[in-house]
């Protein structure tokens, strides 16, 4: 690719991108429809030409209505739509502006208070402990990867824990809802922390990994869950352990990343986000949801747009306005259109180079919707035509080995949608890929190191 070609391409992209400005900006009435439009009042005409009307009626239908309606019927329609526009915003005299809570409740904070030491039932020395009877256990109480259990920050400190895997079982996704069952489903299928065929590293031997239980959630409110989860993530990371969060829906990415930033400071690490969905809804009537998670992080400067990489975009939230907004924020986005044009090998090379050039530290986030439904049928916000588990795990493994990982999160697994449990196996594989990457880094190996014995049988 010559520099001249790149320059010309950049110019073309710039020319294509800017003249349009905001969508729905203006809608000049076509000449052949101006006679009908002439019967409307100035206010009604403004409603059309300003483009406001296009929020309620697609352009193609608007042309049809203008061409075919008589004057009365047209006025009636435009008036009705103007009345809708007037009702769209919040009116304190009409609308509930916030959901009241029961201030008299004895347990206003429902189970989000960790038991203080003097009230704990029994005493033990701090440190991770096994839930198994046997030296080489084959079954028993399920934990992430069969890892030991830790409950308190002092357990993490005493055990010099490298990685704490934590469930965040909230269940408020905008797609199919079963992400609350995600953590236990991933515990129940013990396919995390298995030796890696590429490096022949066993992450559970190379790292001190624990199952750090679940963080408590308010099952009726994301808003009330956010601060507890962010605080607990900060406390966990404060011990030096890397929090690996298992959602939960993708709204929990916001407190996950926010909690890391509480210790390290905002804008000090990058965000690599695998998802079909950009999750940058800007105008929602709620303050937080899965569709707003990344918008909140960018808007509040918790991560910089230029340090944010999005991979696999293709869902219903991907429209022209959204992509333009992502460009304005300097976000590195990689849609499935880019994969279609350039092929997975080249696009991942670009992504990994962006990560390598980015900040030293990264937070890696997987919304399971990034995977093609063939590999992940139990995605809450399933979207066809995604990436394969091989492509995704390879990229995760590389980044987790190449960068200083400050946090990891996997979200929106809805186990009930997959009787075969293949989806859970793949969710575990994605988590395991990062765990292996962290282990490879800890051992000082090259990020893409392949053990020669694993690569070749060596027979003549």
């Amino acid at each position, binding site marked *: 690719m010559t520099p001249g070609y790149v320059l010309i391409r950049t110019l073309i992209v710039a020319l294509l991108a800017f003249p349009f400005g905001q969508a729905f900006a203006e809608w000049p009435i076509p000449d052949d429809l101006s006679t009908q439009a002439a019967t409307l009042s100035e206010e009604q005409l403004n409603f059309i030409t300003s483009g406001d009307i296009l929020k*309620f*009626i697609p352009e193609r239908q608007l042309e049809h209505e203008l061409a075919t309606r008589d004057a009365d*019927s047209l006025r*009636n*329609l435009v008036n*009705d*739509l103007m*009345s*809708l526009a007037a*009702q*769209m*915003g*919040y009116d*304190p*005299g*009409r*609308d*509930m*502006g*916030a*959901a*009241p*809570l*029961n*201030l*008299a*409740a*004895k*347990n*206003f*904070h*429902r189970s989000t*208070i960790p*038991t*203080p*030491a*003097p*009230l704990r039932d029994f005493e033990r020395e701090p440190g991770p402990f096994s839930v198994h009877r046997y030296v080489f256990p084959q079954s028993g109480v399920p934990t992430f990867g069969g890892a030991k259990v830790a409950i308190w920050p002092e357990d993490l400190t005493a055990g010099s824990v490298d990685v704490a895997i934590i469930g965040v079982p909230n269940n*408020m996704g*905008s797609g*199919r*809802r*079963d992400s*609350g*069952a995600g953590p236990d489903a991933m515990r129940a299928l013990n396919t995390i922390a298995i030796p890696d065929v590429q490096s022949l590293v066993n992450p559970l031997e190379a790292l001190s990994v624990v199952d750090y239980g679940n963080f408590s959630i*308010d*099952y*009726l*409110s994301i*808003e*009330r869950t956010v601060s507890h989860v962010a605080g607990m993530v900060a406390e966990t990371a404060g011990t030096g352990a890397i929090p690996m969060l298992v959602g939960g829906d993708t709204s929990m990415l916001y407190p996950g990343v926010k909690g890391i930033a509480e210790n390290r400071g905002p804008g000090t690490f990058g965000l690599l986000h695998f998802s079909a969905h950009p999750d940058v809804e800007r*105008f*929602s*009537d*709620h*303050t937080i*949801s899965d569709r707003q998670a990344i918008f909140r992080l960018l808007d509040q400067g918790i991560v910089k747009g230029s340090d944010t990489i999005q991979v696999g975009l293709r869902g219903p939230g991907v429209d022209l306005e959204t992509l333009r907004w992502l460009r304005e924020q300097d976000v590195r986005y990689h849609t499935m259109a880019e994969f279609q044009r350039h092929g997975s090998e080249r696009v991942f090379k670009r992504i990994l180079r962006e990560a390598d050039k980015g900040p030293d530290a990264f937070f890696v986030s997987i919304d399971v919707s990034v995977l093609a439904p063939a590999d992940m049928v139990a995605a809450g916000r399933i979207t066809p035509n995604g990436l394969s588990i091989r492509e995704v795990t390879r990229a995760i493994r590389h980044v987790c080995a190449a960068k200083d990982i400050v946090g990891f999160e996997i979200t929106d697994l809805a186990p*009930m*949608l997959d*009787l075969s449990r293949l989806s859970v196996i793949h969710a575990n594989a994605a988590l395991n890929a990062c765990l292996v990457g962290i282990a490879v880094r800890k051992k000082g190996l090259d990020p893409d190191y392949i053990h020669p014995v694993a690569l070749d049988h060596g027979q003549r």
Partner: protein
Amino acid sequence: MKALLLSAILFSPLSLANEEPPDTPGHVVGDQPYPFDTVDPRVEEKPPIELPESVAPRLERLTPEEIEFLKSGDARSFAGSAEDTVEELESRTPEEVKAWVNAMQDVVSRKRYKEGRDAPHIPFNTESPQYNAWRLQRPRSLDPQREAGPVELGRYDGRGGPPTFGGLPLALSQQDLVAGEVDVAILGAPLNMGSGWRDSGERATVDLRLMGWPMGRQDQYVLVEASDVLEIVDYGDVAVDNNSTERSMRHVRDIVREIAETGAVPMIVGGDHSLEYPNVAALADVYGKENVSVIHFDSHYDAWWGGSHLISHGYPVYRLILEGHVRAADYIQVGLRSQGPDPSGFEWMREQGMRYHTMAEIEERGWPAVLDRVVAEASEEGRKLHISFDIDVLDPAFMPATGTPVPGGLTMREAITIVRRLCAESNVVGFDLVELHPALDPTYKTSLNSAHIVKACLTGLAMNKEGLTAKHYLSPLSSEHAVDDYFGDQQQYLDATQAEKDAAEEKADEEETGE
């Protein structure tokens, strides 16, 4: 009559019955939000305990306030009974006792709401330019003009269109209900905020349409075809905000009221059991407070209270009583068997005069006796009745796809009978069927069984209109082949048919002779 009703609806303001709404609580944002009462009269304080003199040395490091706290009900929620408290004290040094008491005090203070520290509400983004987009209704002018009334979506005598409940015609506004003189409007309500599993959103209302073909068809037990007797429509789905139950309640109540105001019976299907609250409140708006009774089929009593949220699928019964829509004495509960409530919950129900019928009662007395007792209670004095049917009242063998299944429930044969009888023999003005989570049942059994429960009520309502309101009416034709008199109650029929036969033969003989 039709024109009169139509003009009454079009030209009178749609008011919330004759009641002044309750005062808006101070911490609620917006002048006219939902009238949730935030007071909780059932917060019970445990009485203080007496500590024996023998533990006095253990308390020497405590301040008088700390000793007071140790005797209070708050401390008892950690320490247990007086004996347990003494045991705890005796196992600790005075220093440890102080740390122990301070830890309890700390937890109690952090559990409670504290002004300045805690948000008193869940904020919404009132700056949003699309704040109300979720519930804005489509103006008629956006579609080609049509006359008011139910619309058939199919090409072939109404069949062959997109799936509706029972393949029935679609109505979308109050004018459609009035113009079509509609008797029953089935409304999907995709509220998906119940706990357990969550799949009671649009999958549930769509599944009830896909599997809804039994609704309105002939019921062989009584040989009545409801859709022949009643005007029944699919009233579409009501909009909900699936990130806030609180915010959804008002709109659901508005749409249910819209149905009930026309005199039609609203049948709300799909979502979680929070819906019982707006459904019954809407009926109270139309028929007056304390004028509607409720029969609540459920394995859970749903009168929980005292949580930080004011409404969820565990609270509707309590909230309806608290706000005065229904008298507690007008509540009947059937099928309870979940782990709660504890004895104090049952005592509360007795004090309130609630009529509860647990699975324990059914085990003790037998189903036929309880069935008759329940139907008699529900039919007292011609009271107006709402049936709130949580599908988890049935045994999970029949309804595996529900949010909080509890084994040991009713069978489909029992449920169909009691629902058909209630809708036929009582004065039913509303019905809901809730807590369907289709993803949990790949066989579709749960959705199909749910549709049959709806059908049972439609049949009953049709029987009521036809006057078939005798106790446990069954068709004499379909319930007996009458070739013989095996059960000893067919002699009259056999004699009559024999007499007819003889008469016909005699006539035939005469005609033959005449020739």
